[in-house]
Every structure is written in structure tokens, then in C-alpha cells.
């Protein structure tokens, strides 16, 4: 891996840190990335399915998941994990991510103060699997013009000022995050900005150290020279010296270790980070600066001389032609005033020349010659996909099957009574629709839910019956007033015939029919009724269409099954209402003799 990130890098962000994520998206937008760099967010305690973020002046939705493994299963191309867990949880998050073999190439850990033994364990585990850990206790890393982690680089204004919006020629590695910005600024003022930058983190034990990053930069063709900003304490800088001496690193290195002040004070004063405390003479900033100078690094005389040193090295490389002058790219400005949308629409759009259903203009689905039927349009608008023919025809079959069931059922009756009260079509229709619920039409939902449960959990029909008994409710979709085994419901016969011929498979229906064998052995009319058949077949259809259990569960919870009944039955209700209008029947009043009056006198 010669480059840490590219313009195609996709990351999963652990913890919904909205401001940091927004800053990443603003950066992506500014540098002209086509897609946001965050593919998904892991928000363990959130029940939401996505969160909205600005993309320029528009908004985009980023999916939320409860766990890293869930997120990964949907976003296989995301190979960077940005772990914003706290010092208590960050370790577990890293260990889980490393176990997802081959998924993550880079894991960034922001938490400060992870117990040292845990930090060492996770760093080692990552090394064993070839995963680069940036941090803990870091603000992150950046590949200017390609990908930026969270807050590194500061505000967009500062990023543009420090030329972090496009690739320069310096590879920068620092320990401190606070000085990273400062160094980027110095490099922009005195050279042409950076090609890749990493703040390795301030804790004593960090995953990738100076040498890991510098070796990668050595093989990154964009990097022409490197800057190493070290710190008092530790011996990591000596590994870099070794690499230079052995010829593994050939590009020029400008370096400086901060904390030269520490030599003046015996003990007790902690200068800088947890990692910054010299336990031996060779760990002092001064000793390291001398050693690096002797090894041929460009080491200034003091921190204050760094800008001049950078300028000199840059000009030298420029004059030799190693570095070529950069033409500044255009910067897409982030709009100052952005408004978060209160509503989201993901199915249709009326802003263009012609309104569209899921991107398809209405004229291309409306007329018969388009090949789209009503079921096709329903699958587009309800499920955002065009279903295959067998499923579309099944949907239409369902609609036709449930369209009406005579004037006596409660919904139709209500619609008729309302129409006779002189109300208009919509009021009468609503009166009928409001009757639809758990006792009228709702069995489709329940049948789908419970038969799916029994099937998914491998309950035998007998176990299923005892499970339903424990729930204390009759099995939804089982039983008919008149129809029985000997007197079958021909609607169901038709449905089964269609399904046997056209459905690729129908395991839930088969399962429900096994259950039916058991229930009808007890009582002849405990058949799988039309609601039950439709409910289980809908689940079979979705399973066959490739939806997973969570998605199907969501459809059921959202009431999509009921929706088929509602839509279909509207046809019948409207029929009854129009019938009433045509007949012009008077106001309906229920006869007294059909009501049992049992009113007791209240005691005064």
C-alpha cells in the first residue's frame, strides 16, 4: 500500500459524531469528490436507519447501523474504520473490526487514555493482521485532495488556506494533533503543501509509528520529501534513522523533536503528551535531534527555524525538477446558509420536465405500450424496484381478490351508511376505510408475521400451535365462517394454482398448509383463509425477491401488507358509494326493534 487513502476511499464512522462527519462531507464536496467518503455510520444506541448531512447545499442520507458487522455486510468496499468510541469502548470496537478479516485496511482511533495494556493488545493484533492503526489519541490523517479524517485540518477556510484541498509534495508525520495544523500551514507558506499527513497520536502506545508512515510515504510517488515532527520520549525516531542509514528511506527528511526544554528540568514537569517523557538520555529531544542531524536529516537549530529549512529543501527539489509547480485547482465553495430539509422523498420527483416514479418519467410507464402495468407502478412507488412479472401479477391478483366482499361487511356497510347521509365520495370512502383494522382486513399482517416467525424459528406445526396458544390469540389467517376442507374457498384455490405455477418457491405457504392440516383435523373450517394465504405468499414473494428478514420485518411493521388490502378494497368501497349515489337512497336510520335497550335509571 503506497497510499493511505485515495479519492475512492470509503469509510465507516463508528459513533454518530455529526459535526465531525459533516466536516468530512464538506471537505469531500470542496475537493470535488463524487461520493461522500462516509459510507455508513455505526450508532449502537440509535433506532434511526439513516441520518441526513449536507452535501454542498443539498442533503444526503447516510445509513446508520447498530454494529460494525452489520454496516460491513452492506458496505463491503469500506476499508477504513473511523473509531470515535470513548476510551472505554474504543478497544472493543477495534478488536471486533480486526476480526472482520480483510475488511479494514486502516483503523483510526481517536480516544485518549485507553489502558496501556489494551492499547498494546489491539495494536499488536492489528499488526498481526496487517491493519494500519492510526492513534489512539489522534486527530487523524489526511490525503489532501482525496480523503480527510474527521476534524484534522480544522475549518474549511483553514484547509483551503493551508492548501490541504489538493495534493502537494510533502509527507508529514507528527505526534501532536494540535501542531499538525500549524505544520500544514508552515508547509503551505514555504512549500507547496502536503501529499499525505498523519498525526500518529499522543498516547504512549500508538498503532502506527513514525517509521511505518514514513516507509509508506517513501513508496508513495506523490511524496517528494518528508517532515517528521517528533517529541521528547521514546525511541521511535531511531528506527527512522536506521531506515535512512540502511537505505530503505532515500527521500529527504526534515525533522525536529519538540520538548528540548525538558532537559532543563529534572522531573515532575510533564511536558506535552503522555508519551512524552524521557526515561533515558537517548530519549531526550536534544539527543534525537543530534542523532537525526548526524544521519543526514535536515534538522534546524531550533523549532523557530523550521520554516526556513522547509523553504530551502523545497526550493532545492523544485530547482532539480523533482517537484513540479502545481496549478491550483478550483475550490467548490460550501454555501454559507444551508437549510436542513424537513421532508425527505426517495420515490418520486416533480422538479424536472416531467414528474418521475423512481427516476422513470410517468409517460414511460403510463400507457399499455410501455409494458408497465399497474402492479409495476405499485412496485416502483411502494418498494422502489420494478418487480419481475410473476410478482407484479401476483400483486395484481391480490388487489383483484380483495377488491370487494359484498355490502354486508362492516367497512362496506359504513361506506354505504355515510353515502346515504349525503356525504361525498371521499368522506364515505374514509368512513369505510377507518373500519379496516385488527378485526377487519388486519389478518393479512398477523398471518404474515406469525407464520414467518414459526418458519424462521423452525417450529414444527405442533410447536407453532402451542406458541400461538401462549400468545393468547387465535391464529391470524386461520378459519372461515362457511368455507371448510370439503367446501374450499375457490379464491384460495386460484391463488394456489397461480403460485404453484409461477412462484420460484413458496416455503411459507407450504409451512402454513402444514399448520392447516393440523388445525383442520381439529375442526373442519379452520382452514388457511384468503387473508392468511395472501399474507404468507407476500412473505414468500419478498424472500424470493432477495429481501432479508430485517427488511421483510420492516415491511410488515410498516403495514405494507395491510396496504394491499386497503388499496384493493377501495375499489369495492367506491363501487358501493357510487351505487348508493345512483340509487339515491334516503338517510339510513337503524330500526328500534333491532336494538336491545337496557338502560337503568341513575339513582338521584
Amino acid at each position, binding site marked *: 500500500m503506497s497510499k493511505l487513502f485515495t479519492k475512492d476511499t470509503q469509510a465507516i464512522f463508528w459513533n454518530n459524531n455529526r459535526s465531525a462527519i459533516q466536516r468530512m462531507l464538506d471537505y469531500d464536496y470542496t475537493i470535488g469528490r463524487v461520493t461522500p467518503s462516509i459510507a455508513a455510520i455505526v450508532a449502537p444506541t440509535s433506532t434511526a436507519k439513516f441520518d441526513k448531512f449536507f452535501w454542498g447545499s443539498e442533503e444526503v442520507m447516510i445509513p446508520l447501523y447498530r454494529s460494525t458487522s452489520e454496516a460491513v455486510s452492506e458496505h463491503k468496499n469500506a476499508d477504513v474504520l473511523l473509531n470515535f468510541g470513548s476510551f472505554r469502548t474504543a478497544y472493543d470496537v477495534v478488536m471486533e473490526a480486526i476480526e472482520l478479516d480483510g475488511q479494514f485496511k486502516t483503523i483510526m482511533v481517536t480516544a485518549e487514555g485507553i489502558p496501556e495494556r*489494551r492499547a*498494546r493488545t489491539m495494536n499488536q493484533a492489528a499488526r498481526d493482521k496487517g491493519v494500519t492503526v492510526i492513534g489512539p489519541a489522534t486527530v487523524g490523517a489526511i490525503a489532501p485532495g482525496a480523503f480527510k479524517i474527521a476534524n484534522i485540518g480544522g475549518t474549511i*477556510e483553514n484547509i483551503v488556506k493551508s492548501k490541504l484541498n489538493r495534493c502537494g509534495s510533502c509527507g508529514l508525520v*507528527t505526534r501532536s494533533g494540535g501542531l499538525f495544523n500549524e505544520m500544514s500551514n508552515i508547509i503551505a507558506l514555504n512549500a507547496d503543501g502536503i501529499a499525505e499527513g498523519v498525526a500518529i497520536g499522543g498516547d504512549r502506545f500508538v498503532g502506527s509509528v513514525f517509521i511505518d508512515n514514513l516507509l509508506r510515504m517513501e513508496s508513495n510517488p506523490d511524496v517528494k520529501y518528508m517532515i517528521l515532527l517528533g517529541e521528547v520520549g521514546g525511541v521511535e525516531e531511531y528506527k527512522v534513522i536506521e531506515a535512512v542509514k540502511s537505505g530503505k528511506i532515500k527521500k529527504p527528511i526534515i525533522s525536529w523533536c519538540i520538548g528540548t526544554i525538558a532537559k532543563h528540568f529534572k522531573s*515532575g514537569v*510533564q511536558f506535552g503528551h503522555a508519551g512524552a517523557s524521557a526515561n533515558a538520555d537517548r530519549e531526550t529531544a536534544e539527543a534525537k535531534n543530534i542523532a537525526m542531524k548526524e544521519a543526514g536529516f535536515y534538522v534546524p537549530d531550533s*523549532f*523557530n527555524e523550521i*520554516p526556513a529549512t522547509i523553504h530551502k529543501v523545497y526550493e532545492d527539489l523544485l530547482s532539480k525538477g523533482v517537484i513540479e509547480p502545481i496549478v491550483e485547482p478550483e475550490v467548490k465553495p460550501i454555501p454559507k446558509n444551508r437549510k436542513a430539509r424537513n421532508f425527505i422523498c426517495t420515490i418520486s420527483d416533480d422538479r424536472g420536465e416531467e414528474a418521475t416514479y423512481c427516476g422513470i418519467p410517468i409517460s414511460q410507464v403510463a400507457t399499455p405500450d410501455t409494458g408497465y402495468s399497474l402492479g409495476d407502478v405499485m412496485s416502483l412507488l411502494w418498494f422502489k424496484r420494478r418487480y419481475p412479472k410473476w410478482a407484479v401479477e401476483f400483486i395484481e391478483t391480490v388487489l383483484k381478490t380483495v377488491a370487494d366482499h359484498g355490502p354486508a361487511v362492516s367497512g362496506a356497510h359504513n361506506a354505504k351508511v355515510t353515502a346515504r347521509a349525503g356525504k361525498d365520495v371521499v368522506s364515505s370512502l374514509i368512513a369505510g376505510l377507518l373500519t379496516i383494522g385488527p378485526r377487519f382486513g388486519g389478518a393479512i399482517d398477523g398471518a404474515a408475521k406469525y407464520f414467518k416467525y414459526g418458519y424462521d424459528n423452525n417450529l414444527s406445526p405442533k410447536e407453532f400451535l402451542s406458541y400461538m396458544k401462549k400468545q393468547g390469540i387465535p391464529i391470524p389467517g386461520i378459519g372461515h365462517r362457511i368455507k371448510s376442507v370439503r367446501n374450499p374457498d375457490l379464491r384460495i384455490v386460484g391463488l394456489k394454482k397461480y403460485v404453484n405455477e409461477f412462484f420460484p418457491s413458496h416455503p411459507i405457504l407450504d409451512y402454513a398448509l402444514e399448520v392447516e392440516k393440523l388445525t383442520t383435523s381439529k375442526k373442519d373450517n379452520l382452514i388457511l383463509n384468503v387473508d392468511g394465504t395472501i399474507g404468507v405468499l407476500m412473505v414468500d414473494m419478498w424472500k424470493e425477491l432477495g429481501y432479508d428478514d430485517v427488511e421483510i420485518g420492516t415491511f410488515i411493521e410498516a403495514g405494507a401488507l395491510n396496504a394491499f388490502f386497503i388499496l384493493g378494497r377501495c375499489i369495492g368501497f367506491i363501487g358501493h358509494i357510487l351505487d348508493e349515489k345512483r340509487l339515491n337512497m334516503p338517510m339510513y336510520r337503524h330500526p328500534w326493534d333491532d336494538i336491545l335497550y337496557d338502560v337503568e335509571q341513575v339513582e338521584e
Partner: protein
Amino acid sequence: MAQRAIREYDGKALFSKHWEKYFSGFHYGFKSVLVSSGDELKKKAEEHGFEWLKQEPLVAKPDMLFGKRGKNDLVLFKDKKPGDVSLEVAAKWIDDKISHPITLLSGQHGTLTHFIVEPFTPHSEEQEYYISATTVGEDDVLYMSTEGGMEIEDGWESKVTEVVIPINMQDANIDHMVKANAPTDLPADKKEAFVSFAIDFFRFYRDLNFAYLEINPLVMLDNNEMAILDLVARLDDTAGYLMEEEWGDIEYPTAFGMEDQSAEEKAISDADAKSGASLKLTILNPMGRIWTMVAGGGASVVFADTIADLSGNVAELANYGEYSGGPTTGETKFYADTIFDLMTRFKDPKGRGKILIIGGAIANFTDVAKTFTGIIQSLEEYADKLKNVGVKIYVRRGGPNYEKGLKDIKEAADRLGLYMEVYGPETHVTDIVRMSLENGE
């Protein structure tokens, strides 16, 4: 937050608390008390369970994190001859030691306040061993030697056996490694016991999240009786939340000689503890000429470095510290007040003006103008005093809203008649140190 030293007494108490779990094959008496005066020691001797203080000859020594107590002549183990120290003599010795400040051979200076008192353990030199463990690079290292005592450091290489234990090594392999690498000169009759103890010791060190643990000398008496004569321990305090039960309420004393925090340092450290922001202050030289008020940990280091490098005399630097993590206006004002108060107490002995560096790197997201509000309020309050000691102020900062911040603070300085130069990100962060020194004579 890092590795922090604990008292010898507390270290031994941890051993005692977990002894059965880790060292079940051995015995440890844990006869130790921690006292601050002779009186307290005598009172302790009256308590049930501490009768040994009256019955046995004693050893007393300071328990204040510093080592080389023997070389500093701070271990009381003999009155007339070794092993004859009575309670009375120990109490008197302690009272004498706390009555005046002392200076150690290392140069640390301060007053003794804490002593550990234990029974004198008669033993021969052959019974003394050395054992310690710590982290070197990414690995743990167990050090063992058949020679204990304070001379261990002379000829360390030849005396001490090292076992390097990687972080992910399994227990069975650790056992094998320690066995295979035990000191070759262990007496035959002690070998098995020592190796077994060393393995236990390493597990104890590892599981309790020690960063450093050393027993020197460890005395192996008869019948598997162990005596921990001297102990040094540091804990990884970031593991505190995992170790609540195991560590109990452990104290982290400040280094000897450092405990005399000034009232001002203490006030800042109290404010730091109460705030979500970070406020740090160490006074290096109250008479120093250059005072700093720097935002950010990394920047505070480079400012201190540069002042020492460019002034050529570190004594010029009066303080070290930083404020960061989004302090409130009130907190920033309090921090500034503290520094302005300290720097205006004395005039420069050589009659020069003082220098105040208000510095910082380019902030990520802190609103610089907002931060400066607290400083401006403090400048208003201390303007006369600051003028009185001839202060020249140099400001350098970048980040969100820095233009307004710089403009506001400069306007305030002009209004108050204070000398001030302000610089933004186009000026190298520490370059105001150079300017101030060149302009300061």
C-alpha cells in the same frame, strides 16, 4: 493521565490484598504501617493487630516515591547495632526527620511527611533476590537476579537475567519462557520456588495493570515465607476504571519536592479538575522575565523550547502551562488573572521590562475571538499592574475567527495603553519569541 507512582506501602498493600489469588504457594505477613509523625506511630502501636510495633525491632524509612534512601542515609535500621530499633527510637527519628527540609543527593529538595515502618527482617545476603517487571518498547520485560540490594545497578548486565514477553503471549508460553530463562546461578533448593514466584509475580504485574513493579530485595525465608523489603511501583492510571475493585482508592502522591505546589498552581489544578477543558500551570521561576499563556499542549511545548533556545537562559522562562479544550470565558479569565497576578508581583531584578507571550497554534474549532474575551477582561483588570512591571505583550494565534480575536485584543491593549504586537497564521507560530527577545533589551 499516564503511568503514576504509588507509595511503597500501597504497593505492599496491593500484594497483600491479592496474595492468595496470585501467590498461594507462598506466605506474606504484610506487617507495615504508613505514618506522618512519631506520635502517630506510637498511637498505631496501641491498636489491635499492630502489637508487633512494640514487640519487634523496627525499620523506618520515608515513603515518598524517591529511591536511593539508603544512600541518602534515610533508612533507620540500627540504633547501636543493626536490628535494635525500638518503637521509641523510630518515633523520635521520624519526628527529627520531619522537623526540617532536606536535600537529596539528586538535588530534590523538600520536607519529609510520610514514613513506612516495618519489622526488621534478619536474613543473610544469600536469601536476597531481585525481581522487577516493566514495559520496554512494545513488550513486557521480567528482570530477575540472585543478587538483591541497592548495588544491583552496578554491573546490571552481568547480574540480571531478562525475559522479554510479548503482549499477546499465552500463559503456558510465559511459564515456559520464565523457567527456561531463570538465572543460572539459582541455588538448587530455591530454584523451583523462585521460578514459581517469578511467574506469579509477572501475572500479578500484568493483571493489575502495573506499568512498573520492582521488589529489591526480595527475601526468600524458610517455609516459603517471603519478605518484600523494598518495593517500587507505578500504575497505568488509564486502567483505573477497570481496576476499581482491584486497586481500591489508591493515592498518587506528587514527586518529592514537587508537592509544595504554590497556591496559584493548586488553584489552576483545582479549576482543571472541575472543568471539561484543560488548564495546566507550572511555575518554573517566579522571578522569571518571560511569561507564557499558550493554548494547546503541543504549542506550549514549542514555545517553552523556543524561549529556552533563543534566550540562551532557561531561567528567563517563568512558567510552563497550557489551556485548551474549549475553556469558558470565565475559565480563561481566571487562568489569565492567575498569570498576570504572578508576573506583576516582582520587577525584573535587572530592571528590564517583562515579556508576555499570548501564543497558540492554529486552532481547529475553538473560536479565537471568544477565547480572547476572557483574556481581554483580565487585561482590563491588570492593566496598571502590567504597565508597572513594563510588560510588552506578543500575541500570535490562528483558527476560527482569529481576525476578530486579534483585532479585539489589540484594540483593548491600545485603549488600556499596553504595548502589544499581534500576529496571525502568516507569522510562524514561535516567531513572536524571537521578536520579543530582539525588541526586549
